[in-house]
C-alpha cells in the first residue's frame, strides 16, 4: 500500500464518519421535531376546546375576548407546528431519499402542503376571529350578535380546515410509512404503524366530510391509529436512529441505479 493509498483510505473513512455523524444528527433532529409537534399540537387544540363553545356564538366570542392571550398562545403553537413541519419535511426527505427519491419527495411535498394549509386555514381563521371580537369601530355596522356569529363562523370553519390538511397529512404518513417499510435501515414496524396512522387520518377526513354523524367515532379511530405510529417513529429516530451501514448501502445503490 502506497502512502497515497493510505491517504485516500483515510479521507474516505473521514468522509464516511462525517456522513455517519450527519445521519445520526438528521435522525435525531427528525425525532425531536416530531416529538415537539406531538406535544405542541394537542396543547394548541386544547386551548381551542376550552374557549370555543360549539354553536354558541356569544359564549365563544366572550371567551376568546376574555382569554385573548391564551387564544394567541394557541395560535403561536399552530404557527410553530407548521414551521416545524416544513423543516421536518426536508429532514425526512434527506433521510428516506435512498429508498425512493420520487416517493420521498412526494411525502415531503405532502407534509409541506399540510403545513401551508394549516397556516392559510387554521391560523388565518384565528386571525379573523380575533378581528371579529376585537371591537374595532368599523365593525359597528354589525350588531354585537352578528360580530359574535362571525367569531364562531371562523372557528367552525377552522374545524373543516383541520380535516382539509388531514388529507395531505394522511398522504404524507402513508408514503413515509411505505418508505420506512421498504428502507431496510429502519425496522418495518414503525412503517406499518405510520401507514395505519395515514389510513386513520384519511378515514377521518373523508369520513367526516361524507358522513358527519360519524365524526365522533372517526376521531377516536384516528387517535388510536395515529398516536402509536407517530410516537414509535419519533422515538425510534431519536433513540436508535437509522442503521447507518444499510443507509449507506441503500444510498449507494440508489446512486448507481440513477447512473
Amino acid at each position: 500500500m502506497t502512502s497515497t493509498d493510505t491517504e485516500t483510505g483515510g479521507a474516505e473513512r473521514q468522509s464516511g464518519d462525517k456522513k455517519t455523524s450527519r445521519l445520526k444528527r438528521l435522525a435525531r433532529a427528525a425525532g425531536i421535531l416530531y416529538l415537539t409537534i406531538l406535544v405542541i399540537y394537542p396543547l394548541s387544540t386544547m386551548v381551542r376546546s376550552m374557549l370555543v363553545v360549539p354553536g354558541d356564538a356569544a359564549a365563544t366570542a366572550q371567551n376568546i375576548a376574555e382569554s385573548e392571550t391564551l387564544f394567541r398562545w394557541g395560535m403561536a403553537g399552530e404557527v410553530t407546528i407548521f414551521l416545524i413541519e416544513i423543516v421536518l419535511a426536508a429532514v425526512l426527505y434527506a433521510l428516506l431519499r435512498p429508498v425512493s427519491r420520487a416517493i420521498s419527495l412526494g411525502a415531503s411535498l405532502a407534509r409541506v402542503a399540510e403545513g401551508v394549509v394549516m397556516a392559510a386555514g387554521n391560523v388565518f381563521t384565528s386571525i379573523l376571529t380575533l378581528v371579529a371580537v376585537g371591537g374595532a369601530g368599523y365593525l359597528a355596522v354589525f350588531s354585537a350578535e352578528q360580530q359574535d356569529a362571525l367569531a364562531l363562523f371562523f372557528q367552525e370553519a377552522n374545524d373543516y380546515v383541520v380535516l382539509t390538511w388531514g388529507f395531505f397529512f394522511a398522504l404524507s404518513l402513508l408514503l413515509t410509512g411505505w418508505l420506512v417499510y421498504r428502507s431496510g435501515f429502519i425496522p418495518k414496524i414503525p412503517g406499518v404503524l405510520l401507514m395505519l396512522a395515514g389510513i386513520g387520518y384519511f378515514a377521518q377526513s373523508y369520513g367526516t366530510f361524507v358522513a358527519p354523524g360519524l365524526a365522533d367515532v372517526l376521531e377516536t379511530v384516528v387517535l388510536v391509529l395515529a398516536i402509536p405510529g407517530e410516537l414509535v417513529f419519533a422515538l425510534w429516530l431519536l433513540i436508535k436512529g437509522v442503521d447507518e451501514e444499510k443507509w449507506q448501502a441503500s444510498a449507494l445503490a440508489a446512486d448507481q441505479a440513477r447512473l
Partner: protein
Amino acid sequence: MRVFRNIAFGVIIVSVLIVGLVAQAGSYLLAFTSPAAEPQPSDTEMTPYAVAGEHPVGVRCLGTDVAAIPLTVWYPSLEPPIRDSSLTYAYAINMLGADSATAIATSEGNAEPGAAYDLVDGPFPLVVLSHGFAITASSYGWLAEHLASHGMVVVAPHHHESLDPGVLWQSTYDRPNDVQTVLSFVDAAASPGGDFEGLIDTETVAVVGHSYGGYTALAAAGARLDTGAFNTACDSAYATDDPLVFLCDALSPRLGDIADAAGVGSVPAGLWPAWSAPQVDAVVSMAGDAAMFGEPGLGAITVPVLTIGGTADTDSPFQWGTQLTYDHVSSDRKIEVALEDAAHLIFAGDCTSVRRILSLVSLGFCSDSSWDRTEAHDLVKHYVSAFLLSELKDDQAAGAALAPTLPEVADVGYRAEGY
C-alpha cells in the same frame, strides 16, 4: 459523565412523552361528542304543560351598552323560526373567571336570535330568571324558551361571579340587587318610547331561580336573612355533618361583609332588612337555598310560591331548601314538588352534546343516577309553566292542573295549598 448525560437525556425524553400523552388525552377528552339523537318525547298525558306553547320564540342578548347588567331575553316573537334548531345553548360554568364561561355541554334550541317582538299579542308578563351560582344564563335556555312559548318574556341577568365559594357572600347581596336593577331597566324600557314598549307588562312579574338563583328569587319575593335561624341551622348541620355545612362555611364567617355591602352596619342578631322587589307577584325556587332565611325569614313571603327540589340533593339539601321554603312561607297558595332521589344539577342545562370526559367520568353535571334529564326537565317545564300561567295570566286550566287531588306522577312527591 456519559452515563449522567444518558440519564438526563432519558429523563427529558420521558418527561416530554408524558407531557405529550397527557396533552393528547386532554385534547381528546375536552372535545365535545357529536349531538346525541333527539330524545324520545316523554308521555305528557299527566304533564300537559310540558308541551311547548303556541308562541314562536325569539332571543336577544343585551350587553352593558344597552342594559345596566348583561341580560339574555327570551320573548314571544312574530314569526316561527326559519329552522327547527336555530341556536345552540351552552351549559357552561364560569370556572376560569366571572367573564369566561367553560362549556361542559350543549343542546339545541328553537328560539330565533333577534326575531321581531310579538307586539300584537303583548304585553306579556315578565319572568326574571336567576341562574345558579357561577352557571351561565344560557344553561337555562331550555326552560326560558319554554316559558316564552307560553306567552311570557323571560329576562335572565348574568350575575357576575366565578366558581369560587369564597365569593358566595358577595353574591348573597349582589343577586337580589341585580334583580332590582333588572326590574328598573325593564320598567324603563317598557315605558313609551322604550325598546320593550308593548312587549312586557311590568305590573305582572315572577322571579324564577335555580340553586343560589332560588335563594335570589326568594329574597326578591320578600324573604329576609335571619342570623339566628341560620346559626341554629349551621350548628345542627355541623353536629350531624349535614351537606349544609358547605353553605355555612361560605357564609357564616362573612356575614359582616354582607352587612357592610348592604349598608346594614353591624350584623343583625335576627332578621335582616328585606331586599325584596315589591313588583314580584310569584316566585319559583328550584333546588333553592333557604337555610339563611330560616322560618322567620321565609315567613315574610306572602306571594304564591312554587318550590321544587331533588330529595338526593347534597348541594342545596332538600330539607334546608325546598321543604323549608314550603313549610314556612306565609303564602296562601304554595306548591312543593319533590323529585325523588334527584340531585342538584338536574335543573341545570340540557346535555345533548357533552365534553367526552363527562361521558367517561360522572361528575354530576349531566348525569343523575335516578333520573333521565329530559324527563326531569319535562316535569319542571310542566309545573313551572302551569304555576306561572295560573299566577301571572290567571289561567284557570293551568291552576286546575296543579290541584293536589290529581293522580300522582311517578317518582314525584307533591304538596299544594290553595289549588
